[in-house]
């Protein structure tokens, strides 16, 4: 039963955050510092999600050559910066990871 309560709560949280300004509030009424802080949410949260996925695949820091993910990730970042296409990181990064994994076997 509690899993359903959890599912509904998470659904409510995600909806309310999405609807916060579109449905309920005018962002112009909020202090400048608050709006400024909001602009740093995407780079901060996304980096906090991406970085461990590249250098901590097993939960411990691993930037050795035995971990191909940070290498594929760096190349994917370069591809994203250069090509400026939403597909570039995945089209470059995933096949590269497969190649590196294959080469290491």
């Amino acid at each position: 039963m509690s899993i359903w309560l959890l599912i509904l709560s998470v659904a409510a949280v995600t909806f309310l955050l999405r609807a916060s300004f579109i449905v309920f509030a005018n962002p112009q009424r909020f202090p400048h510092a608050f709006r400024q802080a909001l602009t740093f949410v995407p780079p901060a949260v996304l980096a906090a999600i991406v970085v461990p996925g590249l250098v901590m695949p097993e939960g411990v820091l691993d930037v050795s050559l035995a971990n191909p993910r940070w290498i594929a990730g760096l190349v994917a970042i370069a591809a994203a910066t250069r090509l400026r296409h939403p597909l570039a990181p995945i089209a470059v990064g995933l096949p590269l990871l497969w190649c590196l994994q294959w080469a290491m076997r």
Partner: protein
Amino acid sequence: MTQSSPRQEFIAGCRDISPVLLGSIPFGFVAGIAAVSAGMSALEGIALSVLAFSGIAQLVVSQLVAANSPFLVTVAAAFVVSLRLMMYSAALSPHLAHLDRRWRILLSFLMTDQSFAMTVKRFNEATDRAYVHWHFLGSATTLYLSWQAAVAFGVLAGASVPATWSLDFAVVLTFLALLVPAVRTRADLAAACVAGLVVLIAAGLPYRLALVVASIAGIAAGMAIELTRRR
């Protein structure tokens, strides 16, 4: 561009979002696998996806359910990883303010990182903006339906995918594709670097609190750079 119709805008939205599906479909598949691996039933995994429609929130909830985390910790983690949706909401609201409430509720419910990025681009590029909300609806609906299909497939067939496919890396790459264009100024770069560093230092904290701590540290770093720059 000449005068466009709602129908043309809707179809353009469906078409423009389609390259993104190459990333979001494996991601949805991974999210479906994560839900059942965490011990949720197929119905619960699909319900979470249909109602919350947020890949990273679904993944975080699955990880915390698997770790038997307390209810409030799990909801708080979902809140923090979804804070960026609030930022998107603030950015889009001036463009959508003229729509009636039902439209705004519908578009809010369907908004994701990808459809947000696509819609902002459309608002900036279109000369005729009367029907851009139809473009938003087209891209968001396409993403919603394909996402739910991918999650359902992951929930039902997921256990048989070999780990060597490294599909979880598709998730990281999907977020990397959003991170890179989100870093435009030096303050953004500071926010990303500090968050990336702190998440590694704080990795030992329980319940994925590292993500929360690192996000706050990154936001603070961005604000600090912004303040010193203005003096």
